[in-house]
C-alpha cells in the first residue's frame, strides 16, 4: 500500500453569499494515496471545485482537517500556501490560462524559473507531444494544444500532485483524448498523484479510483483494478 499524501477529516467549507450561508463541503473525509490517478465526478454545486481549490492551496477550509503529507492546509498562512503551490502543486484548468504574450516554451519557463529542480521546458513539452510547437504563441495553438502546454507547464516543476479542473471541458472528444493521454503518461512515468474533477463520467474509466460527490460529501467511491487507456474513452 503506497503512503497517503492527502487526507481530510470532517472538512467543512461555508461560503457566505449575501445573507445566506452556502455549505460547499459538509464533513468531508478523504484519503488519497501517492501516485494515484483519481477522477472526482459530480453535478454542479456538489463541491468538486471547492475541494480541488482547498487541496491546491487556493482556498482554505472553514473547519476540519486537511493535510498534504505534513503540511496543514487549513491553518496555513498565505505565504505558506504560496510556497506549497510553488513547490508541490501543478494546476490544469478548463480554459488553459496561458500567458498570451509568452510562447509555449516560455510559458513553461515561467514556472521553471521559480522551481528548485525543474525539467527542461523542452522535455516537459515533449512529454505532452508538443516538441514541434515550442515557439508558438497561445493564439497560434489549438485548444487541445494550449491545454497540453498548460499540462507541460504544470508538470515542469516536477510537482507531487497534479490538480485538473475540467481539463477537457472546452475540448471536443478527439482533442480531449489527446489531453487525457498526456495526463495518463505523466502519471504513469513520473508517478505524479493526479486528481481530475469533471462532469464527464466517461473519464472515470481511466482512474484508479472514481469518487462521486453530492451535497459537499463523497457519496461513493469506485475502485478500478484495471485502468482504461485514454484512447479507448469516447464521449
Amino acid at each position: 500500500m503506497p503512503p497517503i499524501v492527502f487526507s481530510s477529516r470532517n472538512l467543512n467549507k461555508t461560503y457566505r453569499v449575501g445573507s445566506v450561508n452556502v455549505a460547499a463541503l459538509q464533513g468531508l473525509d478523504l484519503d488519497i494515496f501517492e501516485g494515484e490517478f483519481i477522477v472526482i465526478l459530480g453535478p454542479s454545486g456538489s463541491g468538486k471545485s471547492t475541494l480541488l481549490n482547498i487541496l491546491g492551496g487556493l482556498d482554505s477550509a472553514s473547519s476540519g482537517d486537511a493535510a498534504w503529507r505534513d503540511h496543514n492546509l487549513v491553518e496555513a498562512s498565505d505565504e505558506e500556501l504560496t510556497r506549497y503551490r510553488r513547490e508541490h502543486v501543478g494546476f490544469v484548468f478548463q480554459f488553459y490560462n496561458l500567458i498570451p504574450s509568452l510562447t509555449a516554451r516560455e510559458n513553461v519557463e515561467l514556472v521553471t524559473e521559480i522551481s528548485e529542480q525543474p525539467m527542461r521546458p523542452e522535455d516537459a513539452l515533449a512529454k505532452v507531444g508538443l516538441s514541434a510547437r515550442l515557439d508558438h504563441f497561445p493564439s497560434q495553438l489549438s485548444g487541445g494544444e494550449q491545454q497540453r502546454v498548460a499540462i507541460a507547464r504544470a508538470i515542469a516543476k516536477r510537482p507531487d500532485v497534479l490538480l485538473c479542473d475540467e481539463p477537457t471541458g472546452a475540448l471536443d472528444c478527439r482533442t480531449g483524448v489527446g489531453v487525457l493521454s498526456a495526463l495518463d503518461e505523466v502519471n504513469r512515468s513520473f508517478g505524479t498523484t493526479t486528481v481530475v474533477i469533471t462532469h464527464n463520467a466517461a473519464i472515470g474509466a481511466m482512474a484508479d479510483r472514481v469518487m462521486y460527490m453530492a451535497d459537499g460529501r463523497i457519496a461513493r467511491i469506485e475502485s478500478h483494478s484495471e485502468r482504461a487507456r485514454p484512447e479507448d474513452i469516447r464521449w
Partner: protein
Amino acid sequence: MTALDRKLLRDWRRLAGQAITIALVLASGVAVFISSLSAYQSLVTSQRNYYRESRFADAFASLKRAPLSVAARIAEIPGVIQVEPRLVQDVTIGVEGASLPVSGRMIALAAGDEPQINRLHIVSGRGLDPAIPAETLVTQAFAEANRLGPGDRVSALLNGRRQSFRIVGTVLSPEYVFSTGPGEPLPDDKRFGVFYVSREVLAHAFAMEGVFNDVVLLVAPGANMPAILASLDALLDRWGGMLAHDRSLQLSHRFLQDELRQQGTMAATIPPIFLLISAFLLHVVMGRLVATQREQIAALKALGYDHEITLHFAKFAALIVLPGVALGVAAGVALGHVMLFSYRPFFRFPELDYDLAAWAPIAATAIALFAGLGGATGAVRSVARLRPAEAMRPATPPAYTARFSAILSQAPSRWKIAARGAGDHPLRTGVTLLGLVVAAPLVLMGLFWTDALDYVVDVQFAASERADAVVQFVEPLPARVVQEVRRMPGVLLVEPLRIAPVRLRSGHLEYQTSLTGSSDRLQLRRLLDDALDVVVAPKDGLLLSRRLAERLRLRTGDPVELDILDGHRNRAVVPLAGVVNDLIGLSAYMDRESLNRLLQEDQTVSAVAVRLDASKADAFYAAAKQTPKISTVSLKERSIRNFRDSTGAVVLLLAGIYTAFSITIAIGVVYNNLRIGFQERALELAMLRILGFTPYETARIFFSEIVAEVCLAIPLGLVAGYFLVRLLVLAFQTETFEIPAAIAPRSYFWAASLVAGAAFASAAVMGRKLWRMDLVSVLKGRE
C-alpha cells in the same frame, strides 16, 4: 425599475471608485473651462459697460498750447461729437513718508466744471468744489498703494513752486484703469498717480489761462477715424501737436487690451486642452469598462436584447458623465466668481459683473457626453457584432508575434511579458502611453509661467537694462548735466541717454514709440539679440524690437520713415539695421550721435542711466526729489516688482489654478490608465499567483510593463510639453510684452516627478489589490 436598470445601479456601485475618479477628472476639465471663460467674459463685459457709462474718449491728442478757440474748430471736424480741451501736466509729487520719488499727472478741464468725457467714478469722498482751489481728487490705485484717502494731504512741485493739496475724494477713470508713468513700461501705482485739480490752480501755475494742452474727443459710431486723426494732426500742427491717436495707442487701454487678450488667450487655449484631455480619458475608460463586460453583453444578446444593450451602456456612461459635468459647471461658476474677485486689484472698473455665456456649459456638456457615450457605445458595438455564442466563449488569446524573441531570449520572463505586451498591442499600449504622456504637458503648462516670468526678469532687467535707476529730465539738457547726476549721492556710474518720441512709418503701417540714442560704450543699457549677444546700434541705421519690426512688416535693410516728435520735428528715412530681443515694450534705437544730428542738437541728454551704491539709495532718492530738472526716476527694483505684481500676478493667478487642476487631471489620468490595465490583466495575474508566484514576484511582472511605460511616457511627455508650451506662447505675444517659451529644468523635474509619483501611488493601490487578490473568485469570474 427594469432589471437592466437595477444592473446599471449595481454596476455603478461596484465601479464607484473608478466612476468617481473619472467624474472628478471630467469635472476638473469642465471647471477650468467654465471658470476661465466666464472670468474672461466678465472682464470684457465689465470693460464694455464701464467705457460706455463713463463715456471713454475715442481720440486723444496732446500739444504744447493752443487757445480755446482751437477746440471749437476741432468740434467742427466731421464725425466728432464732443470735444473736451484740458490742461495736463506731469509733476513731482510729495507724499509724506515716501522715500521713493513719486510722480503725478495733474489734469484740469480747460473749460467747464465736470468732465463729460472720461467721467470719473467717485469711490470715496466727494467731487471737487470749484470754489476751493487747493483740493484734489486722486486715482484710487495710487491712494491705496500710498495709504491715502480723503482728508490726507499731498504736495506737488508746480513749475518750481511747491503747493499743498487736500485730497477730497478717490476716483476711477476709464483713461487710467492702468496708470503708467512717463517712460515706464508698466504701471506702478505707488510711484505714479493721476490728480484732478481745479483749472485755476494749474492754469495759474503754468501760465495757461485761456489755453489747453491736451484734448479728448468722442466721435460718432462708424466715423472715419483715420480721417479725423489726420484733420486733428493738421489742425494742431502749428500748436505743437504731438500725437493724435485713437484708443489703440492710449496707454491704459492698450495695457488693458493686452491683459484681456492674455486672459482671453489663456481661456481659449489651456482650458479646452484640459476639457479635451479629460474627454479623451473618459472615452478610453468607458470603452475599456464596457469591454470588461463582454460576457454579459453576449448573454443579454442571447436573451434577445438588442438596442436596449447600447442604451443600457449609454445610461451607464451618462451616470458617470452627467454628475461630472454638473459638478464641473457648479465648481466652474464658483471658481469663476473667485477668479473675478481676485482680479479686482488689477482691473480697476467700478463694477466687475459676473457673466457666463450660455454656450460654454452647453459646449462642455456636449463634448463630455459625446466623448463618454462615444467610448461606451463604440465598445458595445464591437462586442455586439459577435454572435452571442462566440462572445460568451472566452476571447481567443490575443495574438502575439516573436519579433522581440532574439533580443529577449536571455531575458527573464517578466521582461518578455512586458515587451511583448507593449509591442504587440500597440493600441492598448498606445492608449495607456498617451494617457501617461498627456499628464506631463498639462503640468508643464501650469508651471512654466513662473519660469517665463523669471526669464523675462533675467533678460530684461539683468542682462539688458542694467541700470539701477534712470533719471529723466523735464526737457533735454546739455551734456554737462551728466556730471551733475554723477555727483549725486550714491551714484557709481552714469551713462547719458537721449530719448525722443518718434513715429515710425513703413508703407501704410505706423507706430509711435520712443527712439533711444544708444552707444557701443554703454554698459547700463545694452541691446541684445535673440542669442542674448550684445548688438550695437550702427551709425547709419535703426534697430527695432523684433515684435515692432514684425508689426511694421520690416526686414533688415528696409527703409523706415522717422517723424521725430520733439525738437525741430525733423523727418528722415533710415534703413532697418537689425532687430533687438526686447521682451517688454516696443522700442526703436539708433546711435546717439546720429540721433543728436537728426535732432539738430549738440549732445543733448534727456535721461541718465545710473548705477547706485545700494546703501546710499535713499540719499539718492532724496536728492532726486529736490532737483526740479528731474521729472521722473525709474528704478529697476520697482520695475521688476511692478512687472511681477501686474502682469506677473494675473498670469500666475491663472497659472496656479491651472497647475492645481493639471495635477488633479494628471493623477486621474495616470491612475485610471494603470487601473484599467490591471483590470484587463487580472486573470493573467491571478494565474501567476496560482502557479506559485509570490505577490512580490507577480507584482514585479505586472509592474515591469508599467515601469517601462512610465519611463517611456515621461520623456515623451516632457518633449510634448516643450512643444505645447512653444505653441502656447505664440498665442500669448502682446504688444506690452512677450512670454518666452523658457521652461526651467526644475519644472521638467516637477512634471516628471508628479507623473512618476502618480504612477507610484497608483501602483501602490494596485499592489495592495494584488496582495489581497481572491484567486478563487477571479477563476470563478472566468469559468
